[in-house]
Every structure is written in structure tokens, then in C-alpha cells.
């Protein structure tokens, strides 16, 4: 921190000052270079996902705390080195490849989601009600070994990351750099072909080269996302408190097609 950032004589209530539109939602941000945010060592953004909106996988350089202001859906976090503990009960193709992945979780209004730095996070809205998620990035955390600037590393797409424009304002005079890339887009095609054992066409798609830029960080999943999730929990009202109990034993495949709210 610079010396003067917390010499605040006056505080202001702040609204988001930037909005980036995507195919199935938008992300609003507050300027993290504002002295009040710098003093607190945090950055804030608000993400709105329309129905069937998938927030593309990304990670950040500092711990995140996400509050679900409205809506419900599913999210995934990828913990490096952990096994894929959720698997399809059948082989999905003739080559015997069955889908396996790490746990997928549900979220609903009022939830707080804790995302460690560097851990890939994605979320999806299956309902008609838009999901509004307010995300705090604690750039002042000891877990962040970079500077105080929040950084979002996207695994896919070619959208501009939400805090980049403030960073550009900070570093005036520097030549305009390429922008709107994901972490695969920076690698040479041959590196990725060899690392993933895939052909050049797929590499181009991973790098987001053939994609129109207005898809953005939140893409629409045609027909709804179908992933394996644990059994649905039923909610029962007990007095004034809502508690979760009663779990079915049968595994299910989460699917959100059509308009039904719950299965």
C-alpha cells in the first residue's frame, strides 16, 4: 500500500462504474484503484447471469467471497490434484470414455461461496430468475503474492477481463497491449497440440480465435446444461428457519431443460 491511501477525509457511497455485457448476462465493477478500495485492500464486482447463463471458468490472484443476492443454480470449483469423484454410471461413447469430474454444488439466494486464490470457479443459472452474485476479491490477503490489482484469469473465450481497463488507466503511456484473450490464447499452437494431444482446429477453439467477442464471460447454454450432480435435497420449513434434510439415495443427472423449477 502507498502511504496516502487510508488518509481518507470523506467517504462516499459508490455505485459500479463499469459494465461489460455478455451473451447471457453482464458484469459490473467498482473501480479498484479508488482510494477507499485501495485502503481496504479489496475489489468488488457484481455478476448477473440470465437463464441458462454459464459464467466461464476463471480464477483470480486473491481469495474471493461471493454472496448470492438473488437466484439459484450450480457451481463448480476445481481443486488441483484432487480426484474426479463424480462419475457417469455408464460409458458415454463406444471408446469407453465416461465423464468424470470434481464435485458440482448447488447455490441459492443468501449463500456465501468461498473461492481460494488460483482455484478455477464456474457457475450456471438454471432458473428464469436472474442470478445476481456479488464478489469480493481480497487483494490485500497474504495469499496474494502479486500487487494490489485484482486479476481474473479466464480459461476460455476471448473477452476482456473485468478489471483490465482500470489497470490500463494505471499504466499510462505504455503501448496498448493485445487484449481479450484467455490463458490458452497466449501459448503457441504447437505447445498446445502436444500438451493436450489434439489437432490445430481444436487448439484454435481453445484459444477463442474463431469466436465473436460479444459472447463475453457469460455464455448461453443452448438447451440447458446437463451435468452429474448429487441427489436433490428437499427443503422443509421448521418454524421460521429453513433447514435442509431428507436426501434421496438415487444418483441423478442435473438437467435444466424446459421450465420446471425442481425435479
Amino acid at each position: 500500500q502507498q502511504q496516502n491511501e487510508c488518509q481518507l477525509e470523506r467517504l462516499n457511497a459508490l455505485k459500479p462504474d463499469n459494465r461489460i455485457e455478455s451473451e447471457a448476462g453482464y458484469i459490473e465493477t467498482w473501480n479498484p484503484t479508488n482510494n477507499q478500495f485501495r485502503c481496504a485492500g479489496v475489489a468488488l464486482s457484481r455478476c448477473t447471469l440470465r437463464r441458462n447463463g454459464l459464467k466461464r471458468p476463471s480464477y483470480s490472484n486473491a481469495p474471493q467471497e461471493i454472496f448470492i443476492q438473488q437466484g439459484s443454480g450450480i457451481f463448480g470449483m476445481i481443486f488441483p490434484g484432487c480426484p474426479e469423484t463424480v462419475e457417469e454410471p455408464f460409458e458415454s461413447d463406444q471408446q469407453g470414455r465416461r465423464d468424470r469430474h470434481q464435485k458440482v454444488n448447488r447455490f441459492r439466494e443468501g449463500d456465501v461461496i468461498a473461492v481460494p486464490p488460483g482455484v478455477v470457479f464456474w457457475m450456471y443459472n438454471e432458473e428464469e430468475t436472474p442470478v445476481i452474485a456479488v464478489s469480493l476479491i481480497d487483494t490485500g490477503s497474504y495469499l496474494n503474492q502479486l500487487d494490489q490489482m485484482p486479476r481474473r484469469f479466464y480459461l476460455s473465450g476471448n473477452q476482456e477481463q473485468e478489471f483490465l481497463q482500470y489497470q490500463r488507466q494505471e499504466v499510462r503511456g505504455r503501448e496498448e497491449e493485445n487484449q481479450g484473450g484467455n490463458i490458452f490464447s497466449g501459448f503457441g499452437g504447437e505447445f498446445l497440440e502436444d500438451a493436450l494431444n489434439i489437432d490445430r482446429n481444436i487448439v484454435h477453439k481453445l484459444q477463442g480465435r474463431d469466436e465473436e467477442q460479444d459472447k463475453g464471460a457469460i455464455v448461453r447454454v443452448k438447451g440447458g446444461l446437463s451435468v452429474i450432480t448429487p441427489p436433490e435435497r428437499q427443503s422443509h420449513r421448521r418454524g421460521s428457519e429453513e433447514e435442509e434434510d431428507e436426501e434421496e439415495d438415487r444418483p441423478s443427472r442435473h438437467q435444466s431443460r424446459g421450465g420446471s423449477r425442481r425435479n
Partner: protein
Amino acid sequence: GLEETICTVRLRMNIGKSSSPDIFNPQAGRIKTATGFDFPALRFLKLSAEHGSLNRNAMVVPHYNLNANSIIYALRGRAWIQVVNCKGNRIFDGELEEGQVLIVPQNFVVAARSMSDKFNYVAFKTNDMPTMAKLAGATSEIQAMPLEVIQNAFNLEREQAKQVKFNNRFNFLVPPREQSQRRA
């Protein structure tokens, strides 16, 4: 009890030319690490180290350190290294050779390919329990994601998403085409 703890603490651990590497592939090479788990003195320092020895054309798939900066010092030979930042820009694309150092900040993605018969390096990491996330191969982020998320996030056909997810099971490898050239 000080003499049983601090006074007798182990202050040395050999990670070069180790006979028990943590990662070993006869074709690609070996990697050995010293972390706070196996070398407790590092817990106080909040630092760790990794020694790698890569055979010719061996590749370390794109990966990043979640909780540490990495300072890579080349001990022998040379390797081609690419580093990518959060904007998707390649901020290093070149050779790292004996005596040179490359600093890879936390969360920046790096991949390497050995260009000499042996490329040996030591990487100092600014965390005693560094965690590495891989973007290809076993236990990678791609493999841990549901197929439909990969398909929609990357705008792929289903079969293409399967290839991305299942085609490579290795983090440390000699690419198949290099293997066939070597055999020829």
C-alpha cells in the same frame, strides 16, 4: 526441549540427482521437490524448491502455481519456455539457458520444452507448500470439469470436448510425434 526441536532440526536435503524423484518418466525425465512436508525447516522460511531434469523434447504441460512465485534457474542445457499472463498475452517466449533465471509470478501460466539432451533446473518457490494447477493431463483442471462445461465454455462440439478432456493423461511427457521421430 529446545535441543530436541530447533537445535537438532534438519537443515539439509538433497534434491539434485535424487534416486527417489517425486515425478518420474523414463522418457521425459524426473522432478524432485523439497517442501515444508518433507523438509520442515522450510516451514519457517515459507519457501520451497524443485529440481527438474528433462530429457530432449520432454515437455512440462501448461501449469501455474496457485500460491507462490516461481524463480527458475537453469543449471544445465536449455529449454524453450512460454509464459502467459491474465490477459492471454505471451510475456515470455524464448530460451532459458544455463546460468539464466526466469521469474514466473503467481498464477501466470508456464509451459516448457527441453531443447538439449538434458535440461536441469532448480525452481525456488515463495511458499513452503506450493500448489500447482495443471491445464492438461492427469488431475488437470480440464479433466476435473464436467464435459458439458468444457463443451459450452470453449464452444466445442461434443466429440472435440472429449478429445480435449481425454486425449492426454500425462503432465510430463515426450509428445507422441517426437516419440515416433525418435524411434525412426
